[in-house]
């Protein structure tokens, strides 16, 4: 098998991103949009090919003196995220209006964002990861600054500042990782996984990583950029930010924190779990208080990221599996939520909750769009049969043994989703449809398509949860730092659980085919004493 698919995954958005601005000025926005969607669809297709025929890692020397190598690869942690990013890019591109202003630049920047995110997921070199991570900041900031809402300047500046701090923290952490590694100077992931660092160094590096990825994810109290950016950025950008870009933070925590710094992670995990619980409660309570739909969705997203952080902190095989599932489910659901909100905003001209009512009216409202929004909120609330349920179930069940109190808090916070969903629908879905305001045109199928595709995916993932959890079973089990079941009850369970996990791998498990050896270092540290925090 050739490494061509890995190259294509990056070359497609890169090439299109460079070529789109060269199209004639007379090119219609629709044409540019469709070309961008086609490129993202091709990327998704290549990703699916990689799923069926895993490509070998790619290793090319770039700047060896700096330790910067072009090392690309896919494993069962990064492949689903690449597929998610490609899918969300298609949805985001198609969610842009057919008369998108300055379309050549807009869609180029969207593809540049895609390039950065996919590059980060493909990177097998920490410096390369940092480069890709930083690359994302530039197009997203421009997208917010140029096409944002009335407060676009403030939102862009805040987004840039938070992003810059995040990037600098990550760079510092990665450089420290390379320089302080007693085994030698390298940024290769395999080398980092076996790095020999003093506990003090591990602590400092983890602190920097938590700052970097906590800002990107975000986690309370590092979330200051999120509500404003989500409320001001164009909808396609928010879909990518919430669905894919923020997942770089989650992926980074899992890959760098849990994977490369297991001892420090285990030591800090009670605090990380507490931060997750605080984030979940803070997000849910703020969502309840919002009077603007975009901000409500932003805080809803924040709250559900708290669950993800809890799962990562617990680091049991089941919680990590839940974390990956939550990354995927959250990405789909957030993108769907914003796709629906975007449609409502496009038709009604507002997302202010007090100004909207009767959206479910079958004749004059937006019943189809509102129905999809309701379904997305139900998925976020963890209703069985939808994508959120298996993810949250694994998160809660997997985290309970490690942090029962924080898990309980997150469980209660998650249940608050139903509160703001019902409040939202009671206000905007039902009630009088004001004749003076309700002169809206209905959404047509072309506009509904992105949200509809995401809706189908959310339902499919709920009905077939293996699509969410099957990917990561092997890798997450090998990264686990704690057993899923209390050791005091089943003393030999950790090893047995890992063995069972490995045996239950699906026959076509990508982990088993692509990087079977990569999990070994993590497995070594997984044998932490059961009594460790």
């Amino acid at each position, binding site marked *: 098998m050739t490494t061509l698919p890995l190259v294509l995954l990056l070359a497609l958005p890169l090439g299109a991103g460079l070529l789109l601005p060269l199209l004639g000025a007379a090119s219609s926005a629709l044409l540019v949009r469709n070309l961008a969607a086609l490129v993202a669809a091709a990327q998704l297709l290549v990703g699916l090919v990689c799923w069926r025929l895993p490509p070998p890692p790619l290793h090319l020397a770039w700047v060896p003196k700096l330790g910067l190598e072009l090392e690309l690869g896919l494993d069962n942690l990064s492949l689903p995220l690449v597929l998610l990013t490609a899918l969300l890019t298609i949805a985001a591109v198609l969610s842009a209006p057919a008369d998108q202003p300055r379309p050549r630049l807009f869609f180029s920047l969207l593809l540049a964002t895609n390039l950065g995110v996919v590059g980060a997921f493909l990177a097998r070199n920490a410096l390369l990861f940092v480069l890709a991570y930083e690359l994302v900041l530039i197009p997203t900031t421009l997208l917010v600054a140029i096409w944002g809402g009335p407060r676009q300047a403030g939102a862009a500046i805040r987004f840039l500042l938070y992003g810059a701090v995040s990037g600098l923290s990550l760079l510092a952490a990665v450089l420290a990782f390379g320089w302080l590694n007693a085994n030698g100077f390298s940024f290769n992931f395999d080398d980092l996984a076996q790095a020999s660092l003093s506990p003090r160094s591990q602590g400092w590096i983890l602190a920097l990583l938590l700052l970097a990825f906590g800002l990107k994810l975000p986690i309370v109290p590092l979330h200051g950029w999120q509500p404003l950016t989500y409320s001001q950025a164009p909808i396609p950008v928010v879909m990518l930010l919430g669905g894919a870009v923020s997942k770089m933070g989650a992926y980074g925590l899992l890959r760098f924190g849990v994977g490369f710094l297991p001892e420090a992670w285990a030591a800090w995990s009670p605090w990380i779990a507490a931060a997750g619980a605080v984030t979940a409660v803070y997000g849910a309570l703020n969502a309840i208080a919002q009077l603007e739909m975009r901000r409500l969705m932003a805080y809803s997203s924040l709250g559900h990221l708290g669950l993800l952080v809890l799962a990562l902190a617990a680091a049991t095989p089941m919680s990590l599996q839940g974390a990956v599932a939550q990354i995927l489910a959250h990405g789909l659901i957030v993108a769907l939520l914003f796709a629906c909100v975007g449609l409502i905003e496009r038709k009604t001209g507002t997302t202010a909750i007090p100004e909207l009512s009767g959206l479910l*009216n*079958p004749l*004059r409202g937006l019943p189809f769009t509102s129905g999809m929004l309701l379904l997305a909120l139900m998925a976020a609330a963890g209703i069985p049969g939808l994508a959120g349920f298996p993810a949250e179930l694994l998160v809660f069940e997997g985290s309970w043994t490690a942090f029962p109190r924080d898990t309980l808090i997150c469980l209660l916070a998650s249940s608050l989703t139903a509160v703001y969903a019902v409040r939202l629908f009671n206000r905007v879905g039902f*009630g*009088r*449809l004001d004749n003076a305001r309700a002169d809206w045109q209905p959404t047509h199928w072309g506009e509904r398509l992105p949200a509809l595709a995401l809706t189908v995916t959310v339902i499919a993932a709920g009905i077939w949860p293996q699509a969410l959890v099957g990917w990561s079973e092997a890798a997450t089990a090998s990264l686990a730092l704690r057993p899923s079941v209390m050791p005091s009850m089943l003393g030999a369970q950790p090893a047995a659980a890992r063995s069972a996990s490995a045996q239950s791998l699906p026959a076509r498990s990508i982990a088993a085919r692509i990087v079977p050896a990569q999990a070994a270092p993590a497995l070594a540290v997984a044998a932490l004493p059961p009594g460790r925090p």
Partner: protein
Amino acid sequence: MSTPTATAPAAAPTPLIPPSTHRWAEVIHRLEAGGSMLPDTPENLMQIIGIYKAYAVPMDFYWRDLLYIAERVFLNPLPAFKYFPSQEYLDRPNAYAGEQSQLRIWRGGEKAHPELLQFMATGETGAMPKLLHHLWHDRINMEFAEACMQAMLWHQGMGGRFNDYLASEAYRANADRAIKAYFKGNPAMLALYALFPEMFMEQVKQMSYYANLGLFWEVMAPVFFEMSDIYDEGGFKGVPDAMNFLVNGIFAVAGRPIYHHVYVGDECIEVIPKSEGFTWLYEAALPYVEAVFYRTAPFRGTKSYNAQAGQVPGDQADFHYGILYADVFPVGSAGIPPTLLMQDMLHFLPPYLKDLYKQHRRGEQDQLIQLGITFQRSMYNVTSAVIQALRCALLYPLDDTDPDHLLANRHFFEAQMDRFLRPEARLDAIQTQAYR
């Protein structure tokens, strides 16, 4: 050379009374000038006449079935087929239209309207047995007519003597006779009647309201058909013409007897005999307008009103859930939007209304709402006709030169307009064509 003299402008006639300062002064002045609450525009005229036509066809079914239920189904404890009037009632000649009528006022034919018969035969789905049309709801929605009847029964005291008569000994004796005749040979029902006489009496009262409303609509259906015909012939010049036609029609049949006869086999039992002297205007038309246009009930729509939270007035006379206040948008969030009637009218829209609806809002997709709003406009016009008719009956001509008389008229109109001061009233909305 003579100095040119400026021509004095023609002096405008000095109003005999000062302008109204009422919130609805503009509408009041229009009423005083012989107009309607609905502004006089060509589109308003087209809308209301078109909807009268679409209303008249189902109404032609309503009145026949209401009388069938009142006179034939009567107290059937399992009236599963009450919406299937017998052929006799479908062929029943209209008392005020057709060659056979003793007092022919309207030009229409005596039989059920051809469009109605066509729809009953095929519906929207095509020809199939009546029962399947019924179960598939591809039919005229008699439930709307029954809801109107129930509103009249429930509100009761709205002027006139009809409701008082239902409590009289004479009525009870007639009802008793009808009940015993109807259940003759049915000891179980007679035993029940002996045990619970008031329950049966209440049912008979309801049947009397069925008859009342049926007789009311028997008059209105040919009125609306004729208005449509006149409009098609180019006969109406404006909304006031249409309103005046209604006013004249009201007076033409104001004395029509309101009665309730029950047929048991070949026997006719007069539960409310014509000799009691109940008349169409006072015992049917005015209570109907009051109960259905203004009041109705707060529990019909999809929105729940909470009486304990003070959302429902304590006095039924203050109810305001009728079509004049209804929000037809959310299919029931305020009052009774006549959702079922709107469905019925949709089958019989004249082509010019369909074309109009295609040009606005969501075109064909939401013509149900657009026709509902048209219906609301038309009912404001009908209410204007009733107000003018009452003014004619109780007060003074509009061209009266006595300021005291004009002030009396003014106070009457202002009192009527007071009912539209509440925010739910759609009087403000119908003043512009933007309300669709």
